[in-house]
């Protein structure tokens, strides 16, 4: 029985489909990001809105990019802060 369980898990950890899935996931992040700079633009606009509720930022200096290494893709935002609003206790919605 134990032998069966060990083999069962071994087989699954060795299964090539997990590798395929992970490679596909990464390649599609790259593909889709390349295809749609508009998407980043929309995201940028939304970010500005949300962040501005708490912090005064320099909108023109805002940079949002997808940074990719082989292993992963990260959303990187560089947001110049002008002023932090004082004493925000409850976020107004």
């Amino acid at each position, binding site marked *: 029985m134990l032998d069966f369980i060990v083999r069962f898990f071994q087989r699954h950890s060795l*299964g090539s*489909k997990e590798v395929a899935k992970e490679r596909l996931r990464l390649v599609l992040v790259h593909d889709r990001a390349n295809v749609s700079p508009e998407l980043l633009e929309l995201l940028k606009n939304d970010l500005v809105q949300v962040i501005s509720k708490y912090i005064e930022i320099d909108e023109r200096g805002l940079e949002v990019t997808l940074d990719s290494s082989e292993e992963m893709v990260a959303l990187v935002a560089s947001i110049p802060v002008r002023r932090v609003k004082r004493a925000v206790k409850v976020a107004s919605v």
Partner: protein
Amino acid sequence: MGEVIVITSGKGGVGKTTATANIGAGLALRGYKVALVDADIGLRNLDVVLGLENRIVYDLVDVAHGHCRLKQALIKDKRFEGLHLLPAAQTKDKTAVKPEQMKEICLQLKEEFDYVIIDCPAGIEQGFKNAIAGAEKAIVVTTPEVSAVRDADRVIGLLEAAELKEPKLVINRLRPKMVRQGDMMTIEDIIEILAVDLLGVIPEDEQIIVTTNRGDTVVQDQRSRSGEAFRNIARRILGEPVPLMDLERDGNLFTRLRKIIGLR
């Protein structure tokens, strides 16, 4: 007024032509009038897959250029009442037809037929643009492989950009045994990645090669698994809520997926 459906994939060799022939025949078997259009100009295939290669007189390019009337170019399939083929030209290239001409031909066809199904060439260039020009709905075919799913994703993006919203997915050549062993992506994996609705799953089946060798379709073969899968797809296109068939026979792996399709 009929409906124009394009069958596309991005990657070649995943089963577009096979799917076009079998879905078309499947709809004809249910009593509908169907026109199949081979939009793969220069690499025509749908005629041989259907065993109609010896009956071609005129083709799509002749129709587009006004060398003949549409009726004259349509080949009637004698085995299936209601099934017709508009063959591609073999000696021209993809620029021989313009998107506007394709649109016009599709408009004419859907006046007479319940379903107009377009077999799209591989790629995303001119031939693809022609093939989708007159379509109202799209079916994307993929196999459970990284390259095919990647191309399907690209094509889905292009279809949506062309206002062909909510394309439906057909997963072809699935091997249940490999899925069970963890060596092939599952139906769920692929749907999750592509985020589209599933229209059907065709198992890998030697019978497809056998029937194609003879110029027959596999939907006629009552015993084959792939034939059943294609018949199910035809019924889903007609709006019937057909559950996913049990590719495993002993089941359980696919029971959860029944819900996805059963609720359609």
